[in-house]
């Protein structure tokens, strides 16, 4: 009988845990407004092919920038992002140094990567395309990201937040990074996870 009670209590506890997990809801308020990117909740990640046997990830931890969403005039929507190259982290110091050197990013000469949107076209409330100019390694090229709006709504501190995920594939040779194309892939998947706090 005692065992049955304990089992029931555990089941209730587990059930309540699941209920708590289910409490996580994506906020679906309007994303309209001017936002400043929250660097603590934003990141640029990338995946690059290594010697034809794996796809290795890296990330840039520091992002600054703004975005604005105008529901009445979507053509006025804008995104502007700046990323200091020395915020690179690939989980190995020597590789970080190698990537930031002349072989690839040449960060001393080109210390910042930036993106400025030229158009945002939403196919529906949550998905669309973000097009703009990506400046990397001193070269500026047009790039189109697939864009997904995650959610928008109030935070517990009286603020208002909205977040997006943007993903694309670039070719590093387009940006003048040609070294060792037979060992490190030309195609690189880039993903921006951005959370902004409304002004």
């Amino acid at each position, binding site marked *: 009988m005692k065992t049955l009670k304990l089992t029931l209590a555990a089941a209730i506890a587990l059930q309540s845990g699941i209920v708590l997990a289910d409490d996580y809801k994506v906020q679906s308020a309007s994303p309209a407004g001017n936002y400043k990117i929250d660097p603590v909740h934003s990141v640029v990640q990338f995946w690059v092919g290594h010697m034809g046997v794996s796809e290795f990830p890296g990330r840039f931890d520091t992002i600054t920038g703004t975005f604005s969403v105008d529901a009445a005039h979507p053509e006025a929507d804008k995104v502007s992002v700046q990323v200091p190259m020395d915020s690179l982290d690939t989980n190995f110091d020597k590789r970080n140094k190698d990537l930031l*050197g002349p072989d690839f990013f040449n960060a001393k000469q080109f210390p910042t990567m930036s993106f400025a949107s030229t158009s945002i076209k939403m196919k529906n409330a949550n998905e669309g395309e973000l097009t703009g100019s990506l400046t990397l390694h001193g070269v500026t090229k047009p790039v189109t990201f697939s864009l997904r709006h995650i959610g928008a709504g109030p935070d517990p501190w009286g603020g208002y937040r909205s977040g997006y995920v943007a993903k694309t594939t670039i070719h590093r040779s387009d940006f003048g990074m*040609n070294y*060792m194309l037979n060992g490190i892939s030309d195609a690189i998947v880039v993903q921006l996870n951005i959370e902004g706090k409304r002004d």
Partner: protein
Amino acid sequence: MGPLLLSMVRETVLWPSLAALAMMAAGALLQNRLFNALAIGTGFLVGYALIYGKFSFPPTEAQGWLPVFVASAFIVFAIDDLKGFPFGSRLALQGLFSTAGAMLLLLPLLKTDFPANLAELVASILLWFGLWILVDMRQGPALFFVSVGNAAVCATTGSTMLGQLGGVLATVLGIHLALNLKRPPGHAGSAVATTILASLMLIGHAYAGTSTLPTLLLLAAFAGLAFKRPVFAWSFSLLPVAISIALAVKHYLSQDGGGY
């Protein structure tokens, strides 16, 4: 040997060697000493094209200046070999090239923070100029040994690409040394080789963060040029380079892994 390593050997050793040997053969047929300088320059540029693979003017990166430097150094000092400039004019030209070279390579850093990089600029000009005068006035194996050391130091402590480019220079200088042991490369040859070596060392230090102590030891190897007796010239050149390579390799092995 894996395909990636094989490709690096082809880019660094095979094709530059063939280009340098072809130029030397042409020079032997035509009995023209300028082909020694052409062999060093052409061999290096073949490797450069295969490894770096970009030519643009004005260059967007420091290493993009290398073909311009090689071509201009060859043209000006080939005229010197043909006409024989007065000593003072040659010194002035070497000073001008060293100053312009260091300034152009460091320009992106000088634009960002001029005061912080001024000391490096002045030191680079003086070292480049001093190294050039030594190499031009005294023949010996020091240039070859230092180029081998520079390739090793760059590859292990700074940049694989600069290490490869350093390897190309070491290859063509090794061929030149083996085939022309008793014959100097001329002012044009010294100009081309010194320009490439000084540029690679400076780019490595400024942009790839190559270790300072091994780099200074490489520069110390030029002390070998002060000796006329081959045994001293070779020993005083080889010893600092060997220590430099050992330090660089030790640094490399102290890390958990290597490569990208």
